[in-house]
């Protein structure tokens, strides 16, 4: 049993409207130190141990969890225990 954390964000050069909005909102709340905000998806998978897990998780991302056309993702395996 392993846990995979996946971080999905828009590719370089693709506009991120939620991020841009958060940027403006934080500024108007007085957080002038914020230089940029990107908002993407955080996905946490609990996966039963098996052969080439990582490869299969990547496959899941390409097929369903991310949109390879406009998004890129990063997969990190963390301890099942991790909070």
């Amino acid at each position, binding site marked *: 049993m392993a846990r995979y954390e996946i971080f999905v964000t828009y*590719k370089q*050069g*693709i506009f991120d409207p939620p991020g841009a909005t958060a940027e403006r909102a934080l500024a108007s709340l007085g957080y002038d130190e914020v230089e940029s905000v990107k908002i993407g998806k955080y996905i946490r998978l609990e996966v039963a141990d098996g052969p080439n897990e990582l490869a299969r998780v990547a496959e899941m991302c390409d097929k369903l969890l991310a949109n390879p*056309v*406009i998004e890129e993702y990063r997969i990190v395996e963390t301890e099942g225990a991790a909070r």
Partner: protein
Amino acid sequence: MRDDLTAELAPQLAVELGLKLAEFGKIVEILGRTPTVTELYMYSLMWSEHCSYKHSKKALRMFPTTGPYVLQGPGENAGVISVGDGWAVAFKMESHNHPSAIEPYQGAATGVGGIIRDIFTMGARPIASLNSLRFGTLDKARQRYLFEGAVAGIGGYGNCIGVPTVGGEVYFDAAYEGNCLINAMSIGIMREENLTSAVASGAGNLVLLVGSTTGRDGIGGASTLASQEFDEKAEDKRPSVQVGDPFEEKLLIEACLELLDAKLLVGLGDLGAAGLTSSASEMASRGGVGLDIDVTKIPARETGMKPFEFMVSESQERMLAVVTPENLAASQAVCEKWGLRSTVIGTVTDTRRFVVREGDEIVADMPADTLASDAPVYDPAMTRPAYLDEAQAFDPSTLVHPETPGALGDALLRVLASPNVCSRAWIYRQYDQQVMLNTLVLPGGDAAVIRIAGTKRAIAVSSDCNGRYCYLDPYVGAQIAFAEAARNVACAGGRPAAITDCLNFGSPEKPEVFWTFHESVRGMSDACRAFEVPVISGNVSFYNESFGQPIYPTPTVGLVGVLQDASKRMTMHFKQAGDVIVLLGETADELGGSEYLSTVHGVIAGAPPAIDVAEEREIHEALLAAIEAGLVRSAHDCSEGGVAVTLAEAAIAGGLGATVALDDDLAPASSLFSETQGRIVVTCAEADAEALTDLFVSRGVPFSVIGEVGGERLVIEDKVDLAVAALVAAWGPTLEALVSGDIPQPEELVEG
């Protein structure tokens, strides 16, 4: 002046950018020198098919484009007609096929955003949208993904900006598998005096860029994509997909309409395909002026952008305004109020030259007209496709057709359950259909009806095109596309006022494809003339092919009709037991290209139904007279699936059965499923039956009294006897079931 392109490299780049060498030669001739990189990019986009219509221009001259109430015909961002009391309606349809085939949600969403900008650029407030969709069959996962994504994108964008989506159409056919069609139509309303033009004028005036920042997204997007056919290369073009920001667009609508109301602008243009290059050069060319733009002034989304990238970027949600120096402060204040960026990026000049500079250095300098107006115009070769003779020669009567009520009933259920006929509720349930409170007739019937607030009037709108008919006979098919749109509008009580169109075809460089294009335009033009209805706007989408296979010719018609009295609007569902059912028109033996043939026999062939547009118009006029006289309780036209499906849909929608006898002497299957044009199922109160039939007699239109509304079953004498509940069970769930991937197994569909 920067020269960053050697005479050797220039032609190479030109070809890479999709220009023909002859076209490159013309550019060198115009400039009298080797173009710079920026110039070459700008010409290549403006001279692309998508922006220049170089293959379609001549054929489009066949369209009638004038009429007593036409305020703006083709040529501006949208066409405009007067609808009385000083109110005007602007509308246009546009394709976003290629971007959507790559990324359905964003492709469809930005398609809606683009057509909406075309509307408020004219000074009109968008009040309704429609969408015309084509996909492959939903048994393919990719097609389900495209369909689900496109519908979500259309809803996601339209719902957010608060413009109701009130109608549309969708067909599923293998012909669209490699190249789906996403055509979006938008309709806006304005006071006539607010009609605006995308024009730049007045040397010394300022060019103001309003809205979103400019990034590399969409470089060569729509225009490049839409100007070449699909193949493996499509993969590389993926980064050109853009993400829409409907929130920014909503702010743009409010700010721009406020700017125009306050008469603060000289001209207003939207940035669509080919971005700044296209809107700026078109505005300059219309005004007979020059422009001087400094790309370093443009708010950039990314660092290190090159001048040509600024000029061709298709970043969404941007508008270009021309203002006098006196009105600059007031204009920027309005933008500020709406939380929009606005930046002076250049000035209007009297040189008639389009100058682009990066700081002090000039990177492009060309005669402004030549970008917008001097694109080459071609006379493509045409030949009648070889497949036509064989396809049309097919005789449906050589097939074995169901005869018994049991078998005929099963056939009806299968046709009702067909993705091309079944309920579309799964789609429009995802669209806000009511915001603005003007939608008097919601999607689900023939045409949607939108009231013109503050008047007694309303408009009825429908978009239609049966690609199968066009495949089997483009001339007839295009006439039918018009006729069906007009018929749908008439069934709602509307008189056709004008149309827009979106002509979706394969490569115009293929003589057989171009012939179907030419025939379609001829057919649509003849139908328009017969109805005295002008074409006031439209869009051509070529290169809809995948791996060399063109789609069906798909010339979609978006028709807007007017109701002088909104309270006289008509709906399609059976209203009351005891009402008399009349069939306007006569059924002929015309199963060619029918939904029945395709669903029950798996055959797409034969001659499509014949059409006589003059007769068609008389039938619509007779119906409209009856509706205006208050004699009609419901009206629903016959289209895919024939009179059997029309009766079933009216029964389903009304929750009422009917008992009918069809008095034609055709074989039962033809009588039920023949798709003969010019037919409308009309019901009236028993007390009005005589007056109604008298009216039809006096107008000399063919009709027959075929039965009576009532009960819980649809009974068609000797042919069909089914519970309305069974009709609902067949017609209702198809789309949801298909999308959720649980595909009905073939054996569930075989005749019982």
